[in-house]
């Protein structure tokens, strides 16, 4: 599967109201980054931007941001400023931090990293909120039992070889006995189909065919993992909720699965402890779409264990459609304490050294 997947994605970014220095910093960062291809575009470019970053620290910049929001209604028009926004908006804080810039840009491109204006939330001891570091976000859910992902999952659990058809044409042929899948469409089409929540698919048993099996090189595991990420698009897998408690049964084979940002960190954390989404959001400074894509992938592939109290109900469609709130403002119970302990520095191993080693490994050698 790895060979079929597009390696480098292009995100076109338009910078507005930036000074020369900010402009140069972004250009240099984009040049150095090679996981995603960031391309600068201008208002005169033929290519349309995927995202607009507007420096709103000046009056002119703020006015321009308002105007650009009207012009570009279907892409993120991001506020780039030193102060926190006074309204709900995609937001990138100044100054740029290189270690978080690209996760944030990726999240922004997927419609995430929306700044929510904090609400007044009195704490139990009556202290004023505001500077207590509470993070809140709204998430959506998807039904992993539907569409192409649901069909693959169902077919992989049976014993019969099954073709998954869309509009009468095969998309996948699943061979549970050898744990392989034959892809009959391109990776691009598979991604497009996976992202379509309303895709109509039909599963049809097929006779044993050694030639097809011979051609089936992709493992069911890697296919489920990748399709779960494409399907999730930064959403939570139904019937999980922000209160569902989860843990990782074992580590996924991360060197041979499609990359998910922060999957290494999340795997290390979730094999040590059980949490719910609110607590995870509190103790780990990660982007919510990255967390939810990881949960979707580990859930689809059976690595994630969840508590049983949230069975699917008869109102699935309505329940999936409802937005849910995630807040880091959680009670200081045992689960939260254990989670906090799991992300605290080791007494024996200074965090500074480990961080420098990690940066050295993944920076320039």
């Amino acid at each position, binding site marked *: 599967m790895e060979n079929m997947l597009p390696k480098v994605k292009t995100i076109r970014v338009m910078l507005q109201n930036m000074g020369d220095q900010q402009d140069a910093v972004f250009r240099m960062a984009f040049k150095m980054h090679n996981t995603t291809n960031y391309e600068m575009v201008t208002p005169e470019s033929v290519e349309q931007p995927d995202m607009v970053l507007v420096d709103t620290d000046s009056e002119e910049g703020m006015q321009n941001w308002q105007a650009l929001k009207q012009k570009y209604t279907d892409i993120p028009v991001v506020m780039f400023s030193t102060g926190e926004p006074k309204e709900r908006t995609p937001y990138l804080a100044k100054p740029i931090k290189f270690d978080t810039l690209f996760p944030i840009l990726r999240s922004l491109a997927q419609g995430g990293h929306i700044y929510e204006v904090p609400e007044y939330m009195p704490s139990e001891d009556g202290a004023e909120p505001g500077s207590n570091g509470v993070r809140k976000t709204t998430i959506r859910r998807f039904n992993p039992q539907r569409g192409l992902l649901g069909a693959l999952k169902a077919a992989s659990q049976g014993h019969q070889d099954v073709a998954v058809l869309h509009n009468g044409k095969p998309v996948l042929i699943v061979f549970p006995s050898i744990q392989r899948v034959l892809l009959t469409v391109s990776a691009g089409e598979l991604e497009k189909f996976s992202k379509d929540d309303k895709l109509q698919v039909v599963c049809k048993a097929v006779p044993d065919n050694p030639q097809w099996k011979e051609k089936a090189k992709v493992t069911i595991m890697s296919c489920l993992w990748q399709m779960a990420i494409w399907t999730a698009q930064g959403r939570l897998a139904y019937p999980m909720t922000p209160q569902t408690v989860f843990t990782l049964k074992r580590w996924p084979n991360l*060197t041979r699965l499609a990359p998910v940002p922060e999957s290494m*960190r*999340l*795997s*290390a954390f979730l094999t040590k402890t059980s949490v719910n989404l609110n607590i995870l959001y509190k103790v780990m400074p990660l982007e919510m779409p990255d967390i939810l894509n990881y949960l979707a992938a580990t859930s689809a592939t059976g690595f994630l264990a969840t508590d049983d109290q949230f069975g699917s109900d008869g109102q699935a469609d309505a329940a999936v459609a409802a937005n849910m709130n995630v807040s880091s403002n959680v009670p200081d119970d045992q689960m939260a304490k254990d989670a906090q302990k799991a992300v605290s520095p*080791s007494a024996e191993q200074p*965090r500074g050294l480990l*961080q420098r*080693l*990690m940066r050295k490994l993944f920076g320039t050698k």
Partner: protein
Amino acid sequence: MKENKIIFTGPVGVGKTTAITALSDEPPVQTDASASDMTLVRKGYTTVAMDYGVICLDEEIKVHLYGTPGQERFNFMWEILSKGSMGLVLLLDNTRTNPLKDLKFFLDAFQELLKTAPLVVGVTKMDIRSLPGVDVYQKYLTQHNFNVPVFEIDARREDDVKQLVSAMLFSIDPGLEV
């Protein structure tokens, strides 16, 4: 107190020297010699003392990478070498007769270190022989109370080796800011 060192271990020919070479800032010091015993069946040259590589964080702070000699008659060195290590990278060769037996052997050999240091397991040559699968190793490890990363790797691929080491670092501290 931990020392700034990481131990690479595993059977003869699994790729320990190659893995250390992939990470080291300087050409690793190797103490290879022509193999004169059963090792010859698997590779012409083998490490008879140890491999040594280094990752320099600055002029003073270095992380040392030690590769244990593959041959069992040098086992006496392992305990001395591994004392105080940040973690253990165990490489297993899937083409060997009984790689699960190898896993058991190395878990026993490093049991003292593994009481205090994290373990990560890289399985090599799965492209040549796909079984046992990663899940089989994980099942065995879970039965022995190790819920640790087991990754398929190619020791010649720098990125695979780095992923393995990053899993080890996050296992020590999932809250690392990187």
